[in-house]
Each structure stands twice: as C-alpha cells, then as structure tokens.
C-alpha cells in the first residue's frame, strides 16, 4: 500500500466527500471527516519522510506512462506544502464541531462537512499533481467548494462576498486555463516535467510569454496579491468562522505553491519576460501590499476583517521573497507559507471562539475579554506577536530570512520597509490587546465563559507550534532548504 500513498493522499478525502453525504447527522459527519483528515495528515507525514529520504516520488495514474497519462509527482516542495495544508485542515476540523453547530443549520451540517472534504481534496490534488490540466480540474473542485462554504456564513453579506469571489475566482481560473491552452498548443503536452524540457526551445515566443502572463495573473487572482485582493477581506470576514480559519491557513498557501511551481518547475528559474520582469513587479506589489493592507487593518472595526487585511499584507511578504529571487528569498517565502499558516490558523480559531461566545468579533465584543476568556485572548496575543515577528516566534524566523535575503541581494531599501511593516502589525495587534485587557467589559458579557474545549485545544496547539517552531526551526528550515534547492535546479 505504501507505493500508493501519493494517490491515497488525494482520493481518500475526495471519496470521503460523497461517502460523507450518505451520513445523515452533523455529529457523525464531523466525526467521519475528522477521522479522514487525521488519516490524510498521517499520509502527508509519511510522504514527507519518504521524499526527504529517497527523493521525488512519481505515481502513474491509470498505469499510463507520463506524458500520455497523468502523473502524480511528490517532491520535497509538494510534500512540505501537503503537510502544512493537512496539518491545519485537521486541527481546524477537530475544533469545528461547536462552532459549526452554532453557525450552520442542523440540516445543512452534513453538507458543510462534505464541502470541507471536497475543498481539502481539491487543494491536496493541486499540490500532488505533476500535470497542468489536472491542476485546473482540482482547482475547480476546491474553488467551487470554497464559494459554497463562504456563502454559508450567517451574515447575509456572506452571499455577496461569495459571489464576488466567485466572479474573480472564475476569471482567475479562466486565465489559468487560457495559459494551459497556449502551452498545450505550443508543446503538445500537459505534463510539467515534459513541458519543462520542451519550453526552453520555444523561449522568445510571444505565445510562451502570453501563456506565462495568463498563468501568473490567474494564480495571483487566487492568491489575492495586492491589488487583486479585493475579494478577500469580505470573503474572510463573512464566511463561517471555521471556514475563515481553514481558508486563511491553506488556500492562499496553495496559490503561492502554484506560483512557485509554474515559475520554477515549468518555465524554469531563468525564464523572464524581457518587457515585464516578474521580480521587479513582485517587489513593488509586495511592498505596496504590506503597507496598504496593514494601514487599512489598523482602522478596521471588525477583527475578522482586520486579520483578513493582515493576510493580504502577509501575502505581500511571501511575494517579496519571490521578488528578491535568490535562494534565501524563496526560502523566506516557503518559511512564511508554513509560519503564516500557523499564525492565522491560531488567530482565526480564536476569533471563532469569540464569535461562538459573543456572536460577533467587533472591537465592542472583545472589550475586557482578557478577564472573561483569558486563554482565548492569550492565544490571540501570542499569535499576534508572532505576526509582528517578535523573536522566539515563527514570525521572527520569516523576517530574519527575508532581511538576510534583502541584504545579500543588496536591496537596502527593503530592510527598513520590512521593519516598518512589522511596526504596523504591532499597531493593530496592540489595538486588540488594549481593548481586551485595558477596557471594561461591555454590560452583559461579564458572565461569558471560556471557549469550548475542542476550539481551545486546536487553537493552543497552533499557538504552541508558533513558539516551538520559532525556537526549534529544524523541520521547516530543512524542508524549505531542500525544496528551494530542488526549485532552483541544484541537487535535489
């Protein structure tokens, strides 16, 4: 069975979805999904272990050799991102029960878990595959499931947010499809490794540039790279709390993965468009994203929206790493992918707990919450400090690598920009601390109890991970280092 792990990683959640539909009750569907997610997490751990020992795994679907059939290809990069997605998806799901029971109608709860499984399977499929059309198919699965999950939010504005995201996401998917179409017509193949071999001979062709441009813009729409981020704040703010935690920690990470995969594995590290150099664009948009989104976050009243804008800013950091373009820069991107999943997973789960107890997550709700929900608030503070980049947390590791990459690449202006970005994050995190610890509770919330156990457990596991991996950086640093060497064409 061990040789089938690459495909089992995806089809177990994929087939669990229809199986889950046959389960009638929300509680049973939840337990079933949790079991599936845990199995999936175990598979991704085993895959990472195998890949770091024995190098990339290839799995031929249908028994057809690539490029005639579809190939699954797990290398260190995909195994690393699979682990991040599975880890957060499992923890969020374990925590989901009480929050989902409170926010979703009883009759719709099994459907919620079906959609969650579909979304997870779609994301995992995008990461595992070595075939660009297969990427599109699984992107559609995860996207459709995501639109429906967002629209399930209790607030009527969730529908509008989901609709906006649907339109933008569909444009993004269409762009990706156009890019795939160009590549197929030019090379006659859909397999990534095969494409990488055939494309260099075609460089300098306007069609290849068009393919590259459409793929990059399409992925950046899904990534919510500034200024293509407009769908994200509302989607995160009005989606069910659990969905926000899941998406914030996984969906944009998968888009980052796709961008790296297309850029480095398909087109090759040396490919650049002479008219519009991607590196320069990424640096400018990344810095603009960090500043604009952080400043908007400072003035937000809804804390879910505040952290949604903060996510846009954090995506900016990931893109800056790619813009620097050196091995250290890309490694910073990969580290932040891991680290940001830990931070936002913890923060949005904590907010799910706040919404569960108080019915909303505005500043008026959290006044004095440091006394009534001390553990939840402490989680927000630690994860918030990690977001700022305080030493001893994972946020510091990202900033450290990013600053090193900037200095090595002589991007001197980036260093103060990154530090200033951290200060802006400190401002919005401080606003929350001030409201929670230095204001009197609003009348009626004095009796509010601590979060339910499941939520508390998952949130604190993520918080501890924020500190643990900030001190013992071996796992993410080793994995991202290997992945970068693989991407940049060094020894795998």
């Amino acid at each position, binding site marked *: 069975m061990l040789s089938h792990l690459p495909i089992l990683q995806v089809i177990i959640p994929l087939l669990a979805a229809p199986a889950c539909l046959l389960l009638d009750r929300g509680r049973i569907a939840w337990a079933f999904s949790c079991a599936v997610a845990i199995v999936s997490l175990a598979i991704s751990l085993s895959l990472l272990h195998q890949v770091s020992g024995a190098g990339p795994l290839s799995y031929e679907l249908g028994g057809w050799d690539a490029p005639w059939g579809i190939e699954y290809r797990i290398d260190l990069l995909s195994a690393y991102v699979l682990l991040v997605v599975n880890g957060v998806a499992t923890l969020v799901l374990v925590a989901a029960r009480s929050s989902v029971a409170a926010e979703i109608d009883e009759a719709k709860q099994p459907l919620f878990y079906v959609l969650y499984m*579909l979304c997870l399977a779609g994301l995992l499929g995008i990461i595992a595959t070595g075939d660009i059309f297969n990427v599109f198919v699984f992107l559609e699965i995860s996207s459709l499931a995501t639109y429906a999950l967002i629209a399930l939010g209790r607030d009527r504005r969730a529908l509008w947010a989901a609709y906006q995201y649907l339109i933008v996401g569909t444009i993004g998917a269409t762009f990706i499809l156009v890019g795939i179409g160009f590549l197929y017509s030019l*090379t006659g193949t859909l397999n990534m490794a095969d494409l990488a071999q055939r494309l260099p001979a075609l460089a300098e062709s306007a069609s290849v540039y*068009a393919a590259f441009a459409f793929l990059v813009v399409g992925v950046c729409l899904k990534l919510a790279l500034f200024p293509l981020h407009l769908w994200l704040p509302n989607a995160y703010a009005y989606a069910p709390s659990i969905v926000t935690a899941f998406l914030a920690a996984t969906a944009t990470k998968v888009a980052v993965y796709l961008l790296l995969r297309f850029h480095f594995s398909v087109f090759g590290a040396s490919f650049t468009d002479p008219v519009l150099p991607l590196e320069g664009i990424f640096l400018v948009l990344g810095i603009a994203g960090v500043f604009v989104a952080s400043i908007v976050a400072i003035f937000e009243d809804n804390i879910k929206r505040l952290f949604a804008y903060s996510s846009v800013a954090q995506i900016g950091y990931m893109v800056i790493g790619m813009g620097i373009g050196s091995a250290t820069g890309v490694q910073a991107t990969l580290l932040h992918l891991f680290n940001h999943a830990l931070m936002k997973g913890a923060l949005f789960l904590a907010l799910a707990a706040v919404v569960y107890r108080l019915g909303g997550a505005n500043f008026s709700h959290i006044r004095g919450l440091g006394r009534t929900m001390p553990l939840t608030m402490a989680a927000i503070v630690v994860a918030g400090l990690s977001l700022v980049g305080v030493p001893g947390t994972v946020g510091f590791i990202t900033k450290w690598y990013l600053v090193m990459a900037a200095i090595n690449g002589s991007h001197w202006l980036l260093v103060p920009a990154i530090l200033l970005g951290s200060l802006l994050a400190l401002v919005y995190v401080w606003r929350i601390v001030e409201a929670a610890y230095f204001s009197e509770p609003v009348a009626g919330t004095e009796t509010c109890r601590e979060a339910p156990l499941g939520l508390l457990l998952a949130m604190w596991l993520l918080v501890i991970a924020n500190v643990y991996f900030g001190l013992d950086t071996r796992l993410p640093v080793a994995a991202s280092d290997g992945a970068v060497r693989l991407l940049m064409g060094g020894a795998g």
Partner: protein
Amino acid sequence: MGQILDFTLLFLLLVTAVATARVRDLFAAVMLSGIYGLVSASFFVTMDAVDVAFTEAAVGAGVFPLLLLAVLAMVGRYEKTAYRRPWAALILVTITGAMLVNGTLDMPAFGSADSPAQQHVAQRYIEESPEEIGIPNMVTSVLASYRGYDTLGEVVVIFTAAIGVLALLPSLGGGVRRKRESDGMGDHQVLRIVSKILMPVILLFALYVQFHGEYGPGGGFQAGVIFAAGIILYTMLFGLDTAQAVIKPSVLRVLAATGVLLYGGVGLLSFLSGANFLDYSALAEDPVSGQHIGIILIELGVGITVAAAIILIFFAFSEAAGENGEET
C-alpha cells in the same frame, strides 16, 4: 468553404456574446445564451470535435438555459439596479483581448498537421489506442482511460456544484410544504401530449448515448445531461410535487454520491491486483477486456452522478422559486 463557415460561426458567436451582455431583459439574455451554446456546438462540429459538440449542445444549449430560467422564476425578469456603462472594465477586457491576440501570433497555424499538439502526445493516442484500449472512439479512450483521473475530477466538480446548491438553498422535500395550486403546465393539452410522446424517446436516447459512448460520440456526461433534461421536462409539465413523488430528492442525493463512489471504487479495485489507481487493465485477465469493463463502469458512474446532480439542482431552484418567487 470551410473557412467561410468557420468565420460565419465565429462572427455569430461574437454577435450573440455582445448581445447577451447588452440586453437588459434577463429572459432574452438567457435565450441568447442558449443560442450561444448551439452556435458553439456547431463550431465544434466543423472542427470535427463531435464529442465536445455533443456536450456543448446538451449543456450549453440545453440544461444551462433551463437552470437559468429556473433562477429567473426566483428573481424576476428584469434587473433591479440601474444600468451603468462600465468603461473601465471594457478597457481592461480590450487590453486582455489584445494580449490574447498577440499571444496567438507565434502559435502553430490553425489545423496544421505538424503542430506540436498533433505530433507529441496525441500521436500515441491515435496510433496505439485501438490496440491498447480496443475501442473505436479515441476521445472516449483519452477521457476515460489515458486521462481518466481528470474525468473523475470533472465528475467531482459536478457533484460539488450540486452540493453547493443544496447547501445554500432551502432543504428539498423537508418539512411540510404548502401545496401549490397550479403547479406545472399540465393543463396545456398540446404541451402535455407532445411531451408525453417525447419523454420516453429522450430517456431512451440518453441510455443509448450512455452505452454507445465507446463506439460513437457520447458517453456518461452527455447521457446524464439528456436524462436529466427528460426529467426536467416532466417536472415543468406536471409540477415539482409530482416529479418529487416519482424521484425522491433523498434518493437523488444517494445517487449523486453513488456515481462518484462507483468511479472511485473502480479505481480502487485496481489495487487488488497490485496495479495503480484507475488502471483498468488489471480488472480482467486480458488487459483490453479489462479496459472495456473499466470504461463501461466509470461511464456509468459519470452518467449517474451527472443526471442526479442536475436534477437535484433543478429541483432545488424550482423549490426556492416556489417559495420566494414572484407570481407569474
């Protein structure tokens, strides 16, 4: 001659698309989108892509406008917001279009026999698939076997769409519903008689398309859509309550899941003989008969899920239209 036909059809597509975007009456827009589907299907026929044309005709010209009509029954026929001319969007779309055109400049010539798309992977499909898979319709060979995993993904996409609709609209058949007075159009004698004659033919044709997909154009997708269209016709004539008495939504839910599970189950069966996921050659002693069995089974899975998903979506829309729709 061929080129004139191509240009005419493409021009018609352009006109229909612009008209769909400009027309303010949503009912007209839906009808135009049906025409768009039909013209695209014709265009695919001229390109000899009959399987794609078949799908486009069944979905783009058939079920898609029907579903949109069900939505109109819910939201009304006219836009509620004032019409603005979105100039910025137009400029953006023009730039994107220009880039697309620029991108085509270095593409291989249209229909050229020595373009990479004909030379590389496709060559094996054309030359080897009759021996490897043993069925005349190469499109089915590619869809169901060489790239069968993509097709599993596409079926899951349709399944996801149905689940999404069910999750967002009021529960089907749940609780007590007010009895609709004049539900359906059963009083129209001409409609009733013509449809009653047509319906068995439609359902029979769907089964033919389902099981003939290996030999001619067709397969599970098209069959599922056609089957669903037959049921939708029945629903429109005799009303949602009657239709749901014939096919219960709860059964449809199970069927939608069963199709996907059947497809995935066939894939998992290959594990038993040590082969990879979806390797049908492992299903029988002789690899070619294994491929046959595999393709028939997964096409059945596709057909079941597609039909069930589309009927479910239509039921859910009609139900919602019956609850919050305007009187028509």
